């Protein structure tokens, strides 16, 4: 029944550019916002964008996540041509989209595809913070949805790396909000088939992304110090009119509050994911 939607799309179609890579900083040197060390950008990139002095985890682009986590040359992007417009006619939105496309080389804030992680076939998705703060508009919602539907059809596990700053994308109004329902339902249909979904919460995972598909994983991992929550810290501070406790909405806070299964350092992430995929490979084979 759902397959009728696969062909039915009025998106403008463009080709994605060559993948960009490297951490947020462009220069030769990058200053660590946590310990203020001046880091040689090339070294930082080699170190998975983690400060080797204080272990601060810099944000990573969606393509860098693919390069870091998936087996070399195993990733096949899906739905790369999906591109949205400006449904509400929100002033300035088209320019914003154009700038983000140029900056990131992505058509939208979400990158999805099929690949392998330590030999385990899976569907992989990553949100790119560089694209309008990694917010979820209709195309991101649609791509997340299709990734889970693709995984359901091929009976594959899903690993998502989420980093959506503002959560839902304001510029698409109610249509953005509805993506929370759409993606949550896609996750649940995948889950009802007994398939595994692991989500890695990276800095930042907030609002509409946190309150939908990112929270509904079987296993939820988080990177150290990642900001995780529903309401933004500034909104909370203005509402309660008092200073926020230190560490508020950080991954460690979420772990203590029971919202996260484990905090994993980036350099361990690939190994941990491989272990978890292995556990579920065997279980699936033996009993299904």
């Amino acid at each position, binding site marked *: *029944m*759902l397959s009728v*939607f696969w062909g*039915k*799309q*009025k998106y403008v179609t463009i080709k994605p550019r060559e993948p960009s890579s490297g951490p947020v900083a462009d220069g030769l040197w990058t200053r660590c916002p946590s310990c203020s060390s001046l880091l040689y950008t090339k070294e930082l990139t080699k170190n998975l964008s983690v400060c080797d002095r204080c272990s601060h985890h810099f944000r990573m682009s969606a393509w860098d996540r693919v390069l870091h986590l998936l087996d070399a040359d195993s990733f096949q992007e899906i739905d790369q041509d999906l591109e*949205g*417009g400006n*449904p*509400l006619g929100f*002033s300035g939105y088209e320019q914003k989209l154009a700038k983000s496309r140029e900056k990131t080389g992505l058509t939208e804030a979400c990158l999805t595809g099929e690949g392998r992680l330590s030999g385990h076939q899976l569907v992989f998705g990553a949100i790119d913070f560089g694209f309008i703060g990694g917010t979820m*508009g*209709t*195309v991101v*919602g*649609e791509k997340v*949805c299709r990734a889970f539907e693709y995984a359901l059809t091929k009976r594959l596990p899903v690993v998502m790396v989420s980093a959506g700053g*503002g959560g*839902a994308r*304001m*510029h*698409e*109004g*109610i*249509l*953005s*909000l*509805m*993506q*929370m*329902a*759409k993606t*949550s*339902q896609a*996750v*649940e*249909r995948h889950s009802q088939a007994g398939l595994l979904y692991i989500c890695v919460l990276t800095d930042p995972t907030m*609002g*509409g992304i*946190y*309150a*939908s598909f990112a*929270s*509904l994983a079987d296993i939820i991992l988080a990177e150290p110090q990642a900001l*995780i*929550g*529903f*309401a*933004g810290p*500034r*909104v*909370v501070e203005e*509402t*309660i009119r008092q200073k926020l*406790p230190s560490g*508020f909405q950080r991954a460690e*806070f979420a772990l203590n*509050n*029971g*919202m996260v299964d484990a905090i994993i350092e980036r350099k361990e992430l690939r190994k941990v994911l491989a272990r978890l995929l292995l556990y579920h490979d065997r279980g699936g084979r033996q009993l299904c």
Partner: protein
Amino acid sequence: MLNGVFEWEKPLIELEKKIEELRRFTKEEGIDFSAEIATLESRAENLRHDIYSRLTPWQKVMIARHPRRPTCLDYIELIFDDFFELHGDRTIRDDPAMVGGIALLEGRPVTVIGPQKGKDTKDNIARNFGLPHPEGYRKALRLMRQAEKFRRPIISLIDVVGAYPGIEAEQRGQGVVIAENIRQMSFLKVPIICVVTGEGGSGGALAIGVGDRILMLENAWYSVCSPEMCAQILWKDTKKAEEAAESLCLTAQDLLAWKVIDEIIPEPPGGAHRNHETVAMTLKEALLRHLQELEAQGADELVAKRIDRYRQIGVVW
């Protein structure tokens, strides 16, 4: 807004006052003003139509927030024959910002849930201005699951600017509970009718807003977040809320065009707060009509159609 009267309706209010005065004169002094009254009444009629058919999005937001606008418990009182409130999330707290229970709609049992704003300052503080904590959403989910067990339809009356953004709410997983509600509500095997009666803001509204029919009152608003928050996030200036309200396409008319909602429930001229009974009866009629349609469907068909409804949003525009 002064004494519940908006700036833009002042000419009308003054006209109405004048008509009232002339009527009193006619009665008390015996002077006949009927011709003048007729003229003024026709002018008022035109003015009323003029004002209320051309409300700006921001004006609607204001009407949706009117302190005398009917609350969830008002609608429950006016629409249903009987109501028994059920409390608690069985986990941590009973959240007074969310109410729910079993009610009789023309004699048939339904489960009703909805955020509850206060009637006055004291009540508002007790009810946290109608901003639910995670336990409020958890209570709503518990009652919806109970409804599913007993095959009762669910009616969700939505009037909430957003889920409460506080320290404890974040600690107790506001994001997780909203996702969980959305997920579970999507697959409940009973008819669900959601009505945006006032404000419909963000995940805090959607957490009780996944259904088979989404109705919306004429002057309600529903969007990804409140105009204030949108202005704050995009332009770092809450004073640009009016501009944000324009940009967000948050009116019932907009949402009907997007097929995000199914029907607009008309309000009496001037807004629901002018006449609680009329709007409640209009809503009751709509609820009965949609319920009848939904109950003709099997549970599996219901769920499949519900999922498809959301699956479509954003695919075609």
